[in-house]
Every structure is written in structure tokens, then in C-alpha cells.
């Protein structure tokens, strides 16, 4: 498997405060979401992968390059959109993009061309000669994304790319991120907004207090096979009927969850409801959202 990044027993501590605990994960190329609450260790992980800070223990690779020994080669082929303010307010977007491309090692003429291209791509071509200090929050986020891809990296790390955006700005940013994959740029998106990850990524790495909760494809993580049933009145007869028919059932208040195995579970539920005279109020496929997954796995630790 071609990997975007790997970590092996990776740990980092800020003084006595541990930010990452022995993190081991292999993330394939593509679009990966890095999710977790504030302080989960997402930004620390990204900074280690970029060689900005050194890990305390373990090792990590980015695009098969070792972060400890091959920092400069890694930085030549990756881009980074920081979470906080990172734009020079006294420069125009056009000038800053040329500068950003130049600091990534592109020759002057190529830097100019790329700067023009990416500003058009993120929808700032009409605003390129305005000073960045005069930009709105949404425009600044786009400019931050533009500088991260101006040198055509193989992989780009986006740290909370939708932070501070209004709903429409958020949609536009997510659309842009979703398009990056089609440009041949692998993406690692760090966010605590799980819907953003669900919408833009194929893979997810869940962190909680510096430890790994889950890593895997988003489809596998968020769509466990189960059926949720809500009934009017007492649920006990239906539950007993389903269990006697061999179904795996869990009950929470009047909400029943039935494991959806290879049998035709919907028929099973229908027959059990008819046999016990239970009135069904709601029936759905019970696909767990990433948020539910995160909460459940976090609670299960």
C-alpha cells in the first residue's frame, strides 16, 4: 500500500504534558481526515510530520520519507495550511503567492505562473491585487489554501480549513478540498467538525487525547450494518420475539437496534412485529454517523 504517512509508536510531550501517546498508524494516499476534539493531538501530529517539531519517541514517515532525517525533501513535496493567522497583511495576494511559491523552491517565472493559476483556482483572481489585510475571513482561508498548493505538492496538510467560515464559505472551501484529489494532490484534513471530514475524505484517523481511537475507511467506519426500530408502546414483546428468532438485539429506552447480518433482517422484524402485535413507529438502516462512531469509540475506551 502506498502511504501518505505512517507513524510507529510516535509520541510527543510539551514539557510534562503529553500530546501524543505511542501512535501507530498507516494512512494510504488519497483524502484522509484527522479528527478529534481540540487538544486531541491533531496539530501536533501534523507538525511532527512536517518536521516543525521533533517527536519525543517513535518514528514517522511522509510519502515514504523519514521525518527525522529527510525533512527538507519532505517539505519540498508537501504543502501546509496552518490553522491560525499566517498571511502577511501588507502584501497583495498576487505578490504573496509568488513569494510562497519561491520559498517552496520554484523559479521566479514559474512562481508567477503558478501564483496566477492557483488564485484563479480558489476564486481570488479578481482580488489578486488587493492587500491581504483587506481580505474577509473567507478570502483569507482561500488564500491560505492557495499558498499551500501553489508549488503543486504531492500531499497537502490542511489544519482546520473551515475555521471561522460562514455556511456558504464553508461549502465553497469543502468543494475546493474535495477537488484537490482530482488534481493528483493527496490531502490530510484536520478538523473537529466531523461532517466536513465525512463530506471530503475517504479515510479517517480518530484521535482522542493523543491516542488513536480508530483508523480506517470512512465507509467502513460510519456505516455499520444494523437496523434501528422505534415502537409505539411496550417494546419488550418485540425484543423477545426477535431474540427467540436468533437476532442480536440491543435496547435503549424504546429504541431497538438489530444487528443486520446476512439474513433478511427486515423480514425478521416484520414477522416478529406481526406475531407480537407491536406497532412500529420508525424503521431505518441505522447508519452510524462519524460523530456517533467517534462518541461511541471514545466512550468505549
Amino acid at each position: 500500500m502506498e502511504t501518505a504517512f505512517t507513524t510507529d509508536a510516535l509520541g510527543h510531550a510539551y514539557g510534562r504534558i503529553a500530546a501524543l501517546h505511542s501512535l501507530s498508524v498507516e494512512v494510504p494516499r488519497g483524502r484522509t481526515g484527522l479528527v478529534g476534539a481540540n487538544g486531541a493531538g491533531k496539530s501536533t501530529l501534523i507538525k511532527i510530520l512536517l518536521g516543525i517539531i521533533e517527536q519525543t519517541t517513535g518514528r514517522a514517515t511522509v510519502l515514504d520519507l523519514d521525518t527525522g532525517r529527510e525533512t527538507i525533501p519532505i517539505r519540498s513535496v508537501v504543502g501546509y495550511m496552518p490553522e491560525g493567522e499566517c498571511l502577511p497583511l501588507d502584501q497583495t495576494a498576487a505578490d504573496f503567492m509568488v513569494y510562497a511559491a519561491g520559498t517552496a523552491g520554484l523559479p521566479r517565472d514559474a512562481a508567477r505562473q503558478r501564483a496566477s493559476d492557483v488564485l484563479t483556482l480558489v476564486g481570488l483572481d479578481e482580488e489578486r491585487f488587493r492587500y491581504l489585510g483587506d481580505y474577509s475571513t473567507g478570502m483569507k482561508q482561500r488564500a491560505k489554501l492557495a499558498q499551500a498548493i501553489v508549488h503543486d505538492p504531492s500531499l497537502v496538510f490542511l489544519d482546520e480549513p473551515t475555521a471561522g467560515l460562514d455556511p456558504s464559505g464553508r461549502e465553497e472551501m469543502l468543494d475546493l478540498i474535495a477537488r484537490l484529489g482530482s488534481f493528483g494532490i493527496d490531502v490530510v484534513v484536520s478538523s473537529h467538525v466531523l461532517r466536513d471530514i465525512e463530506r471530503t475524505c475517504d479515510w479517517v484517523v480518530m484521535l482522542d487525547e493523543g491516542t488513536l481511537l480508530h483508523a480506517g475507511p470512512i465507509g467502513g467506519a460510519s456505516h455499520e450494518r444494523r437496523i434501528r426500530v422505534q415502537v409505539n408502546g411496550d417494546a419488550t414483546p418485540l425484543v423477545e420475539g426477535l431474540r427467540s428468532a436468533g437476532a442480536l438485539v440491543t435496547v435503549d429506552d424504546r429504541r431497538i437496534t438489530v444487528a443486520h447480518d446476512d439474513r433478511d433482517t427486515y423480514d425478521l422484524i416484520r414477522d416478529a412485529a406481526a406475531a407480537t402485535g407491536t406497532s412500529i413507529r420508525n424503521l431505518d438502516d441505522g447508519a452510524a454517523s462519524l460523530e456517533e462512531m467517534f462518541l461511541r469509540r471514545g466512550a468505549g475506551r
Partner: protein
Amino acid sequence: MTERGAVYDLGYAPYDGSRLGRRGARATLFADGIRRVLGIRRKARRKVFPWMLIVIAVVPSIVFVGINFFVPGGITEGASTNATHANFFVLNGAVALVFTALAAPELLIPDRRDGVLSILSSRPLTYVDYLSSRFASLVAVVGAFLIFPQFVLYLGLAATNTDGLFRGLVEGADALPKVLLVTVIYIIAYVPLGFVVASLANRKAIAATVYIAIVIGLSAVAEAVVANNVFAGGRWVALIAPVNTADAAAEWVFGQSSPESLLAAADINPGVGLVALIVFGAIGVAFSLYRYRSLM
């Protein structure tokens, strides 16, 4: 059928050209540093101070040459070319000090304040690359600031030479290596300290003020200690005053003696003062590197 325009989505064009790596990144930082200090491609108000100081530095040379043109031999009569260059260095040294006070913060503080350092930290650069490129920008600009008026003076004196321009160029040429050397001396005296202050301060105005206060304060302390012979061996305190040392070293290089200089009063050879400047400069550079090691 009417002809209509069409909008084509050209999509994304991958870049497959050359990548210059650290070399390209350093060159970009260097060039950006020069533009930044001079306010080039920045708002108009950012150009005011640097260009005003450049004018202040150059105008005396032009006026001097102009008067010399209308009164041939009038001003330079009795004074050697070396003395003229030395005097202009001492005069422009003070302006260059203010220029450095404004330029050094401009190179370092906005990158930290605006968070641009977090982007640069992800580029193919080390903190040594970053600081050395910024340092080179400051050296280049301050160097040009010091040399340009001297060059105007050299050309002006040659043009007003009574034996003709060519003769003037030849006669004045022996001062040029000294001009270069003295420029380096002033750079060593001014730039590392400017970097130390700029690496610590969070506001440009405060950094500039603190820098000038430190330089003036060091001169005042050194002059007071030497003049009053406060303690045994106190004369060596004269070496902590960079401006006095640079001025004395400049006159020394041009073969001028200044009995009223601080180093002369402390009975210290200007060559020793030069060594002290280099040591203090190296300490300043080392401190700045140490400071940025944890920032990038």
C-alpha cells in the same frame, strides 16, 4: 446564428518544471527582505522612512560635490580624499544607525507577528537558512546605504578634479577598498545587534526605539566610565560602545587620527576595537540563531 463567447474550465495544470529546493527558497527570502526593507511593492506609507533616510544620506554628498564644482578646490583644499571619505562615514554612520534600527525589525517581526513563520516552517528551509537569508538582506541594504553616498562622493570628487575626470577617478581609486572595509566595519557594529533586538521584540516601533536606546546608552556608559576612571581597567569598557568603536575604526582605516575619540581616550588601539566588534557581532548572531531554533 450569432457568435457567442465561451468560457472554458482549463482545470488544474500540474507543475513539472524544476524545483530549486533550499537554494531557491533562500534566494526568494533574500530578495523579499530587500523589497521589504525598502517598502517596494508595499503601501506608500511603508516607503516613507527608508527612502527619506536614503535621501538624507545621499544629499550631503551631492551638495558637497556641487559646492566643490562651483568653488573648485574650495572645500577639499587642504583635506585629503581619505579624510573626506572618513568624515562622510562618521556623518552617515548616524543615519545608517537609524536606518538599521528601522530595517532589522521589518525583516523579522512581521513574519512572527502575522504567523507567516508557520508557513515558512513548512517550506524546504531550516531556521539557519531563514535567518542567514534575512541577515544577508540587511547586510546588503545597510551596505548599499553606506556605500552609495561614498560612491557619489568618489564620482563627484573625480568630476571636479582640476586635472580632469580620468585623473580624478585614478587618484580617488585608492580610497575604494577602504570604503568597502569601513562599510563592513559599520555593518558588523550595527547589524547583529539589530537582529538580536528584532528577534526579541514584538513591535517594530519598540524594537527600533530599544535598539537606538541601547546604542546610545552603551556610548554614554562607556564614555562616563572611561572619563571618570571609575575602576581599575575601566578603560576597556570603551569596547562596549559599537558606534564609537566603528567611528574610530573607520578613521583608523583611512589613516586619520582622532585624539578625542573614546578609544583614544581609553588608550585602546582601534584594531583591538575592531576585534571586539567582531566578537560582539558573532555573539549577536549566535543569540539570534538560538532564539529562532525554537521558533522554526
